[in-house]
């Protein structure tokens, strides 16, 4: 089986978007391009309102990813768990497609008897360990996120620690919204580890609007930019493509 690159957007927010395009639609667009969107809602003492919850679940659902709402103390563990879970989900999708080609019909891994399922699972595990991964992190820096940002930084460092324990390569990029001048601002371009975040994160300013939709759109552009640069270097960029089921 060919291993390509898994592409994920990880959105860390604490509430509802209030400007620009509908983030749920943008997430659907991402999915169509083979990019999974995961969402983590961070709470402090405050509780995220129903509207915010719906949006968080909606974005993850249409983005083919995983969503989780947590208190900020549990953020580190959640960020890495959500990322891993989404990876497995995507890989399972890919393996299911292969299975359907072999077995025909609409059979998936879940339809196999438990014994054979175990063997297929080993393949998924192996892929999860070796596959290349690109994670674009989108951090909400609206005013209410201000005191949660140190925790977010810790969680991201922890994420790179977890993922770099794999034998496959990782690349991370970090964007914040709203940015200083624009809706969305690039904080860190593609890099294999996130250690450089420590110095950048302390200088962050928060405030203003929450343009979640435009942020996802900008993230998609960033993935695309990379791809076109790559194609200039004539490297084939095979990506796992999970078609809408």
């Amino acid at each position, binding site marked *: 089986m060919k291993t390509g690159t898994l592409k994920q957007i990880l959105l860390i927010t604490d509430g509802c978007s209030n400007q620009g395009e509908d983030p749920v639609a943008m997430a659907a667009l991402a999915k169509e391009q083979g990019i999974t969107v995961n969402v983590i809602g961070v709470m402090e003492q405050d509780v995220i309102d129903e509207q915010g919850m719906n949006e968080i679940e909606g974005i993850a659902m249409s983005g083919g990813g995983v969503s989780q709402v947590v208190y900020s103390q549990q953020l580190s563990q959640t960020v890495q768990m959500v990322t891993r879970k989404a990876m497995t989900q995507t890989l399972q999708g890919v393996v299911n497609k292969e299975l359907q080609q072999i077995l025909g019909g609409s059979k998936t891994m879940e339809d196999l008897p438990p014994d054979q399922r175990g063997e297929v699972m080993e393949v998924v595990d192996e892929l999860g360990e070796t596959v290349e991964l690109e994670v674009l992190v989108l951090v909400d820096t609206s005013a209410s996120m201000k005191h949660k940002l140190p925790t977010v930084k810790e969680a991201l460092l922890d994420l790179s620690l977890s993922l770099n*324990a794999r034998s496959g390569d990782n690349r991370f990029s970090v964007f914040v919204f709203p940015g200083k001048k624009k809706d969305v601002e690039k904080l860190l371009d593609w890099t294999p580890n996130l250690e450089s975040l420590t110095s950048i994160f302390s200088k962050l300013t928060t405030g203003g609007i929450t343009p979640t939709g435009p942020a996802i759109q900008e993230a998609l552009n960033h993935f695309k930019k990379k791809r076109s640069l790559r194609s200039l270097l004539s490297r084939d960029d095979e990506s796992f493509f999970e078609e809408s089921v």
Partner: protein
Amino acid sequence: MMMNHSLKSQCKVNPGTVIEGKWHRNRYTIIKELGYGANGIVYLAKNQNQQVALKMSDNGMSITSEVNVLKSFAKVQGSALGPSLLDVDDWDRRSGKVSFYVMEYIQGPDLLTFIQQKGSSWTGVLIVQLLNDLDSLHKTGWVFGDLKPDNLIVTGPPSKIRTIDVGGTTIQGRAIKEFTEFYDRGYWGLGTRKADPAYDLFAAAMIIINTAYPKRFAKTTGDFKQLKMMVRQKKELLKYEDVILNALQGHYSSAGEMRNDMLQLTRSNPVQRSTGNRNAGQKAGPQPASRQVYRQKKQKGSIFETLLITLIVTLLYFLYIYGQLL
């Protein structure tokens, strides 16, 4: 802890529910819930008057993955690694399909509860038992991963520690599948999350610390210094200080090594504790110390070699000059 509504509702069943497998047609009657985690709920169930533990999850992947681990344990003869696997199946519910597996029911209190009831004199014995099991686990190429008191049950009498929940069990060399921050060496900045024997030994040391701080403690400076300070503040931990600190720094390459050091400490009775302690210090030290000695010897050897070569070359040169002069 984590808010996963769908999980709770999907495989939540009431006592008395009969679960029948789709493939093997075995029937299990649910007695009560034993516990739940991120990957599913474990129930106590009955099958033909035999009590079993049944784990259910609507995430079929994690069930399959855990079954794979338990199956590979079963291949190791006469081992007490994790509970033994009895059945794997799917249960068709109106709301959808739920995957489950059935294992031996390991009965008893968890490690911390047991030590609180019976006293800290049990800590040493149980940890030695645990290290024994870990040693054979590591020899089969696995790392337990999510090692913590909740996953350690003391059965008996005779009291014997057993590991449950293999959700974090990982093949050596891969990234740890599941962990709990307090027992994770990555969280304390003392190593990677790649599965190696030392990863489990770090967790084992944190478990010993945990017995003296049942409520755990928060990360302040979050480094070796903080952990060392926490060990020094508790009398019952001082006894194991050398072993704990060695394990935290990753100085042990195998569980057997740590077990031997631990055994030295538990053998010494309270009257001789101070001498026992000193012994332990010597016992725990030799590994790195002997390595240094070896290195020094090697260095001396290489210096001698260099001198000898220089001498021979000089001699040959003089012979050559002498020959030229003639």
